[in-house]
């Protein structure tokens, strides 16, 4: 069996984001790039099944050349081979999902893990789109997994509203979105880092995978959240302060 893992390279969440002059991207100079944290749970989930299912784990990333660092990290953790999909022009979630789905289908993977969302754009769409394109079932958020005794399917726990847990039984193929709490991702070991050097890392072009599919969404502009306005200080005797406060809350903020 083959297991696919989808990973994305994202800015470290501690990064201070600075927009480019045209507002269509971010300044990458001082960005520290990391594997999307939810994808670490996905890699770990796949690696835990690598032995029991005698599976080959293939890690995919659609991203620029620097995304190779994230793929190498996944290889160092223990994935068997990696595929980077190169896009000449920016793709939206729809086109990204389509390209990945075609690559997954071609690879022969029957089970796909990915983070439930990427922490950069927080769109949370790609996994579902991959599943839709492949006509496979998807559990978008999973915090527990158990492979069936006969290795013919998987039981997945999905947290739902109000603290309720949905228990989903899936056969293969399937797509599973991984959430915090699913497992504790391993650190890549030093031998793992050295072995990763020898593991295959291939590149595919998104235009070859997409055929006629083109993005539905074109990014026009990023904007940073407005700076928090300065606080307003009310002074005077208590009666006066109370009056000003009520005026302000009633007439300007309109909450009372």
């Amino acid at each position: 069996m083959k297991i696919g893992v989808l990973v994305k390279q994202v800015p470290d969440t501690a990064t201070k984001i600075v927009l480019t002059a045209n507002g269509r991207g971010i300044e990458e100079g001082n960005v520290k790039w990391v594997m999307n944290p939810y994808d670490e749970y996905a890699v770990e989930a796949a690696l835990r099944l690598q032995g029991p299912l005698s599976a080959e784990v293939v890690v995919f990333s659609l991203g620029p050349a620097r995304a190779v660092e994230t793929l190498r990290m996944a290889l160092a953790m223990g994935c068997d081979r990696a595929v980077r999909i190169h896009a000449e022009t920016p793709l939206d979630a729809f086109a990204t999902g389509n390209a990945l789905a075609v690559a997954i289908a071609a690879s022969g993977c029957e089970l796909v893990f990915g983070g439930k969302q990427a922490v950069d754009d927080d769109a949370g769409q790609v996994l579902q789109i991959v599943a839709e394109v492949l006509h496979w079932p998807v559990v978008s958020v999973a915090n527990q997994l158990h492979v069936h005794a006969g290795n013919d399917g998987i039981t997945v726990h999905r947290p739902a509203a109000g603290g309720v847990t949905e228990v989903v039984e899936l056969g293969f193929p399937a797509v599973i979105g991984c959430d915090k709490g699913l497992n504790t991702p391993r650190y890549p070991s030093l031998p793992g880092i050295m072995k990763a050097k020898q593991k295959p890392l291939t590149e595919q072009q998104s235009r070859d995978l997409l055929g006629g599919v083109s993005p539905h969404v074109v990014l026009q502009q990023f904007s940073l959240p407005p700076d928090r306005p300065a606080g307003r200080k009310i002074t005077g005797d208590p009666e006066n302060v109370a009056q000003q406060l009520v005026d302000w809350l009633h007439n300007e903020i309109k909450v009372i």
Partner: protein
Amino acid sequence: MDCALTPEQQQLRQMVRDFAEGELAPAAEALEREERFSTELTQKMGELGLMGVMAPQQYGGLGLDTLSYLLIVEELARVHASHAATVAAHNTLGVGPIARFGSEAQKECYLPDLCSGRRLWGFGLTEPDAGSDAGNSRTTASLRDGQWTINGAKIFITNAATTITAGSTVQCVTGTDASGRKEMSCLLVPQGTPGFTTRTMKRKMLWRASNTAELFFDNVRVPEDHLLGTRGMGYKYMLQTLDSGRLGIAAMGLGGAQGAYDAALAYAKSRKAFGQSVASFQGNAFKLADCAMQIEAARALLYKACWLKDAGHPFGKEAAMAKLFCAQTMKLVADHAVQLHGGYGCMEEYPVARFYRDAKLLEIGEGTNEVQRLVIARQIGCFESA
């Protein structure tokens, strides 16, 4: 000289940083307070491959270059000196001599367990009355009927008394040579050999979560084949081992300086006084600028010494310089870091207090500052007549 890191070196640096910040940082304060060595964290470091970095692959090591090893020590020391000390001592003093000078049988016997970090190994050199003056060692070993009999004591031996310690390499006087000088040899003494006892040294000012031990030898008998390498070569082995060990201690100084600086810069930028950040006062800004400069210089010097070693050039002088400079850099930076923290810097809740304590050992261990200067002075010819 090319000191650009390979993708693998960048990746291992990141891995060790993530591990140190994720696993060591949260544990450090309690381990220090309780003066406790963590077997669990040590073996985790072993699982990550940090315990036999330069040893040959056929014995379970990774066969990596010196720079890769130093990056590991540097990143551990950036977070917790005690764990960096455990790893540095094990690699250079525990595994190193056996890997370099051991017989085939000795390597096969000891290295797989040591390189995996399942077991630790000590290096017994310093004695209660012989430190820098190692030639004055009094621990003796005499060979009779195929057995060595060892008597004496060693002190300040890292990793030598943990529950996972398998034994120690012990420097012994094994006779006198033709000119009447002491003949020194190294013997491998497994834990549990009758007459061999170890005692963990407590109430240390620093490196409180690393294991430091006294070793006692009371008519300890080991078979003749426990001799490491050649009889009479002990002193030379020791000097060669310490040349490499110095680079590890230098990396601890570099990493410790970096850790203290990172903490100081973050604190100085967030702490406000008189309506502005503490870092923005010129007096403090200049201190931080000096720290950044010193650290860059220390790193360049250490990596150069390391490059010389890996390229097969003599590196003893540069190793001594790097060790001395990195140790002094950490001391300076930790001092500024505590000063910038003010009163909080004196509290153990803030890691800079620990960095301030830990810095001192780097001026003493594996050759004091004075010994480093002696090594440098000798190499530049100060003691030769014109």
